[in-house]
């Protein structure tokens, strides 16, 4: 083949492209991917310099210490057999805002008292801490290290030292609590991390065929599906074995609504709890937002009606049996937890303790 002719033809073909200014889109993408605050001014300069010294997140308190054992868990009241919350495990909370170097993980079960567990580094606030599905361990990313500890403090260890700093892909626990979705660097010199699963028993990394812009993955309880945002307002649901992917209609692209924060996926992947934003609303900060204002049918994009009694949905988590724990805020500002069965009927509700008013739910476990 005539190489020179091929070169000329490629150059000719390349001239077909229309030259556009992508500057603003680049900065938006950077922000949406959770990579960096795209803001001007001294704050950005500090953030950029922080990254140069290896700090993972612009807003990570420099030198924030690792986790330390917190107060011993207080005695948790066990629900009675007739208690509708009987098959709900613990609800884990982190502060919504904090300027502390360490922040405590808190657990609560309806009918009991909140208990303070491990102290986590303040840098994980709103970003990447994740409690295992069995409620026994918590994982987080600190700089480039994927960390793990028991929720009550001990057994802290590094699972991987080569996680992509600042990535919004995980960590996210598999339903069997045996592996974590994470973004791991392939090898030195290759700038793109690979999205996949870290097996906690063997340490092996299994790559997933997932959008390179995938963000905030959440699992279905059967372990088959992952839902995530694509950084452009769309939400995708992928079968992790076959890689078959479905994009949730009515979100992102030219649609009125976007979603950059997926919070929870139902057992069969048919419904997803997420934060949906309209054209006049802020897409949110780069940090993970655990708020959810809608449950959406992943096949139609339609909003699933919930028996909220006119109150505002602020968080929502599916249980493995497809029940939903919905957190709502009433007119008086009080926050309640609603237990909704798989058919969409309200089972029961309970007022949260006042001590949890400024906390966000990090996870709801079934054991």
């Amino acid at each position, binding site marked *: *083949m*005539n*190489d020179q*002719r*091929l*070169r000329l*033809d*490629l*150059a*000719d*073909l*390349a*001239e*077909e*492209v*229309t*030259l*556009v*200014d*992508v*500057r603003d*889109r*680049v*900065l938006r*993408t*950077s922000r949406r*991917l959770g*990579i*960096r605050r*795209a803001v*001007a*001014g*001294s704050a*950005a*300069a500090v953030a*950029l*310099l922080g*990254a*140069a010294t290896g700090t993972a997140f612009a807003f990570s308190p420099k030198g924030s210490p690792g986790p330390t054992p917190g107060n011993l868990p207080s005695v948790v009241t066990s629900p009675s057999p007739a208690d509708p919350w009987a098959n709900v495990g613990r609800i884990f909370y982190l502060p919504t805002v904090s300027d502390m170097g360490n922040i405590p993980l808190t657990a609560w079960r309806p009918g009991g008292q909140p208990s303070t567990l491990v102290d986590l580094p303040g840098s994980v606030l709103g970003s990447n801490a994740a409690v295992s599905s069995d409620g026994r361990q918590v994982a987080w990313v600190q700089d480039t290290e994927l960390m793990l500890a028991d929720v009550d403090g001990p057994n802290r260890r590094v699972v991987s030292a080569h996680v992509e700093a*600042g990535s919004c892909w995980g960590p996210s626990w598999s339903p069997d609590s045996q592996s974590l979705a994470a973004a791991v660097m*392939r*090898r030195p*010199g*290759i*700038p*793109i991390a690979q999205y996949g699963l870290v097996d906690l028993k063997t340490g092996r990394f299994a790559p997933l*065929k*997932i*959008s*390179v*812009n*995938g963000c905030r993955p959440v699992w279905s309880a059967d372990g088959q599906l992952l839902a995530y945002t694509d950084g452009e307002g769309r939400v995708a649901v992928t079968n992790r074995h076959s*890689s078959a992917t479905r994009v949730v209609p009515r979100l992102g692209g030219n649609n009125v609504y976007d979603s950059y924060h997926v919070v929870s996926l139902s057992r069969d992947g048919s419904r997803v709890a997420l934060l949906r934003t309209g054209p006049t609303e802020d897409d949110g900060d780069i940090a993970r937002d655990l708020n959810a204002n809608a449950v959406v049918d992943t096949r139609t994009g339609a909003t699933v009606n919930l028996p909220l009694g006119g109150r505002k949905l602020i968080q929502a988590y599916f249980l493995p049996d497809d029940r939903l724990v919905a957190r709502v805020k009433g007119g008086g500002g009080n926050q309640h937890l609603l237990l909704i069965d798989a058919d969409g009927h309200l089972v029961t509700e309970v007022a949260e303790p006042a001590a949890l008013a400024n906390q966000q739910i990090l996870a709801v476990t079934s054991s």
Partner: protein
Amino acid sequence: MDPLLSEFDSFVRARTPALLRSAYLLTGDQHLAEDLVQSALARTHRSWSRLHDTGNAEAYTRKTMYHLQVSWWRRRRVAESVTGELPEPRRHDGDFASQTSLRLTLRAALARLSAKQRAVLVLRFFEDRSEAEAAEMLGVTVGTVKSQTSKALAKLRTVAPELADLYVLEGSVR
């Protein structure tokens, strides 16, 4: 404006045209090319504090772009967005030299290649990279670049024989 952000702006505006041309050859689609450049530059933005004074920012951006493109998701999107239909084979007459028609044929033929095959062609024959440079860019061995280049050219001949014929008629040995 923050001086680092200002520098980044200048870099983006100066290098976007060249990046878009390569991205267009890699994707075969205007919107996918824009997406690809946008994603690569966003990652460059992330590392700008350590890249801005090294002179390696463009190399980093291109490397990122190639790795993004070879990834599964974008390959799938390209396959979805680009029609696999090739234009009808043309006769060997005077019209054959029509550059517009040739572009259509070449574009459709490139769409038949794998993402990695297309990447090695663009690196070797559009960006004029050596085999070693292409290997470094893609994070593969020189042997892989050689084999992928060979496969890519063979595939081009298979899916668009009239292109190969054209090149042969112009004096090359197949």
